[in-house]
């Protein structure tokens, strides 16, 4: 193979390599990069200990109250977190009550912060669609983080 043919081959493959990279939408790359930040946190993971949807039982007809209000409870070493999901908002409280901030994090890399008041109450409106998780910051304690959640359907379904 002469050198000009080798150059042509090299350029052809390089063209393919650049086209493969150019075909990837920037958002796809950005979401992938942000996956690292979402995981790489120094926070305690809160356990989901109660979910009204799972408690209601599968197959049984859904009662009206459980259709409109879903209740979740998370447990961590510092506090437990009670969450209620209504049609348009996500309301909750830290037990024992304490102030701080709550951050709603979406898989797409968005983070929306809001305050937790003196009696530990917080609200997020509108309620998130798609996958999200909640991170709680309180003074003098490690952050507490929930696992990824979706409200559209019960986990495991």
């Amino acid at each position, binding site marked *: 193979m002469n050198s000009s043919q080798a150059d042509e081959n090299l350029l052809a*493959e390089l063209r393919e*390599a650049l086209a493969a990279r150019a*075909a990837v939408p920037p958002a796809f790359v950005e979401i992938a990069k942000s996956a*690292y930040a979402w995981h790489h946190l120094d926070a305690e993971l809160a356990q989901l200990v109660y979910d009204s949807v799972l408690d209601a039982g599968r197959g049984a007809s859904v009662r009206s109250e459980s259709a409109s209000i879903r209740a979740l409870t998370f447990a961590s070493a510092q506090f437990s977190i009670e969450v209620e999901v209504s049609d348009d908002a996500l309301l909750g409280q830290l037990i024992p009550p304490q102030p701080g901030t709550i951050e709603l994090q979406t898989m797409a890399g968005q983070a929306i912060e809001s305050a937790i008041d003196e009696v530990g109450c917080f609200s997020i409106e509108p309620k998130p669609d798609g996958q999200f998780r909640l991170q709680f910051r309180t003074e003098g304690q490690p952050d507490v983080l929930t696992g990824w959640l979706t409200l559209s359907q019960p986990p495991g379904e």
Partner: protein
Amino acid sequence: MRDDPYVVALVARAAGSDKDAWDEIVERYAPLVWSICVRFRLSAADIEDVGQTVWCGLYEQLGKLREPAALPGWLATTTRRECMQVLKVSNRYEPFGGEPEDSVLAAEADPGPVEEEVLRAERHALLRRALAELPEGCRRLVTLLASDPPLSYPEISARLGIPQGSIGPMRGRCLERLRQSALLSGLSDTMPSGETGKSGTRATSRRHVK
């Protein structure tokens, strides 16, 4: 290319707290994950979901990958599996769509063994890195030469402000530099040009066995 020390180092750094290393892994392999999703003809939303699952899964794997150089193979296999999963689930809700067997879906989207796809992606990644490491003058010229559709010498001359007559010699010199750099990265044994490659040997087999 087997056990590419560069990839091994990237994985080790990302498993620590090095966000730059993670970003570079993403830059390097996003085209592989993306191209597999596209081949499975997933919707944009499904591709996003698969991407999230794959990258989050990779994060979990970072400290556990026994053979960090097998990372692209893991990515390709996981992406394929997730794509199949999405197709299976969406298929369930098409009452008249029939229910193609997995094997049919697989055959339709199958570009050949995972190893070949992974090797191609690795070659591409190495070439892009080698290009990025060229001195600026060379990098600009080679980028224009590799553009699709190719630019003519007069166009390149106008863009770079260099005489047409010097493009040819410069091109030879720059491609040689690129080749040297690619050689250093271990690209030679999978280069189709075969000039320096050990013809007949494929790098596929040994790598994923361990």
